[in-house]
């Protein structure tokens, strides 16, 4: 799994490419934790290239959301594919995140 990072102003956009499952989820968890630590929570998960997510991937996203929400922040996601959105809706996790159509809109929400 490739994980891209990009800075948009003071916001870091982290973009995993590929299905977010098992071993990749562990790698993504570590990367996400690093970004959260460095950016004080100013991050956006660009999920446009995540075709599928399993329970471990969902757990990573939910844990990150919980960690941010404990200090009043929220995990912003953008470009969520229809498949991923359905999974989030079915599992009831969708409300844990803020969803944006694209990266720019998500980044602009930090203003």
């Amino acid at each position: 799994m490739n994980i891209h990072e990009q800075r948009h102003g003071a916001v870091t956009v982290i973009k995993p490419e590929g299905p977010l499952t098992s071993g990749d989820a562990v790698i993504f968890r570590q990367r996400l934790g690093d970004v959260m630590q460095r950016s004080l929570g100013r991050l956006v998960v660009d999920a446009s290239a995540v075709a599928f997510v399993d329970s471990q991937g969902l757990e990573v996203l939910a844990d990150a959301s919980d960690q941010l929400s404990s200090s009043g922040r929220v995990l912003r996601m953008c470009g969520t594919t229809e498949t991923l959105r359905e999974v989030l809706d079915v599992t009831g996790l969708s409300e844990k995140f803020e969803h944006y159509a694209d990266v720019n809109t998500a980044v602009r929400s930090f203003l």
Partner: protein
Amino acid sequence: MTKSSKTSRTQPAPLGATSWLTGWAFARGESVVAIAGMFITGMVAATVVGAGAWTYYTHRTTLTEAQQDALAQAAGSATPGFALAMADDDLSTTQTLLEQFARAQGLQSATISLPNGTVIADTEGKRDTTARLPEKWTGNDQTGVTASYASDMFTARAPVAVAGRGNAILQVTKPFTYEPFKHMRTQIGIGVTGAVVLSMGLVMYRKMRTRMRALGAIQEALRFASEFEDGLPASGLRLAEDLGPEALAWNRLLDDREQQRHRAALEDAAARLTAGVTAAGGGDYAAAFDAMWLGMIVLDDEGKVRVSNGAAAVFLKRNKGEMTGKEISSLMRFDDVTTLAMNVATGKARQRASLEVADVLSAEAEKTVLRFTVRPMRKEDGSAAMIVIEDVTQQRVADESRNAFVASATHELRTPLTTMRLYLEQLVDEGDKDPLVKARCLNVLNSESRRLERIVSDMLSVSEIEAGTFKLRGDEVNAPEMWQHLQEDFKAQATDKDITLTFDAPPKWPLLRGDRDKIEMALHNLVGNAIKYTPEGGNVMVRASEENGVMTFEVSDNGIGIKPEELELVFEKFYRSKDKRIASITGSGIGLSLARQVVRLHGGDITVKSQIDKGSTFTLTLPAMAATTKMAA
């Protein structure tokens, strides 16, 4: 400092509310036990003295009666001897017997006389040595012995019956001898011992009394405190300092307990806030506190953290749990903020103040701009200051971008205006004389005015997209005409830079629906950038193709290229590459951003591939027929 001030201002409370005795005793710092001890001691002393006096009196009386009886008995028993001697008319013998009798009995005086007063024998030299006993005499019918006591002197009178002659009188006197120390040795010993012991007890009590007063007062205080169901009351139990070290220690205990209770109350309040339990049991304030994206810290009047939320812990890089109760100076990395917070917390400063601090913890950490706002918060419970922490990094970055955009846009607007002014002046001066000059000037004025129009249009489009009022028209797009305009617009520009500009059109254009002006603007931006960032003598290729209902425009150049880390950033609004080679090239930084947003609104996208120093290829894809649907949405 605090302790001494409290000690000096607080006086022993009037604890006599329970009874007048405890009140009086407590006011003096004495216990009821001490008072009872004094009373009992007095009673015992009075009893001992009374018993001693009574014993003395009864013993003396008894002894007096016994001595009186003994004297009477001795006088009575001695009279027969005197009578025999007198019957023989032997007065000298009588005298001798009387003297012996007086010595034997310890008499003060002894006299034998006749009823007529003639002294027959006497121990005091009053005897009439010439006197002779008459043969017979009368008088003195006394038959028994009488005895009396007066003025410490016993007097006994006994008849001396002289056979055949008559009754003489024996009168003896004897002093009362009473030696209490001799006769009451045991009682006196017991009494003296008791008195000594009692005296020693009193002396010891006197010595201990000062110490006992404090202990008694503490005892009373504890008894008083036991009347309170909630435990020891906070005040009203302090003792006077002159009661000694025990009282001071007691007061210190009260102070310590009060401080502990105060601290516990603070911690409890903080815990209740943290746990989300309010005094009323209603709102979930702690959860609300933690749900705030602003960092919040409440300080007490000593600059210690009373309450903080999760965001504050994140901003200060601390664990939330470890912050409560610690001094802000030990948690805050920024000295200016610490000083400001301490000034407000301790009341030295009373106005709200804000500080912005750029924070870079390490090389790995990203730069963060934090704004600290410190507000005074005067309350009865001792809270003194509130610190609000806000992450304004993105705002500051946006400000910098806007400032750069304003500077850049101003330059962008001024450049065509300057060109237009110069050519206009030339047209006015020389236009009538030289038709070629006139045509060239008009041509430049035309192109520059269109350039100006595009810039202004781009800016308007950006603001409309930002405001959500951006609208697309759903016309049919005349692609060949648009293609033709594109070639015409950039032909001169490419020629000026000696760039080979190639247009590769498809053999047949598909039907495009959408906003022609906006699509043309997007393509215009892509081609314009390619020419702008390609050095002189370079190549720019614009290729259009259609496949599976998707129209694709590729704009390739062999220019300076884009760094991999900037490939997506170039689509960011107001972003200008950090590449030093483009420092001299003007640009507003909105072209690519606007182009991508417009194309995406048509259902397409713009992507880029690039290699540094080798060139870039921007690909614009547009659904041939789907644009209409997207626009309708």
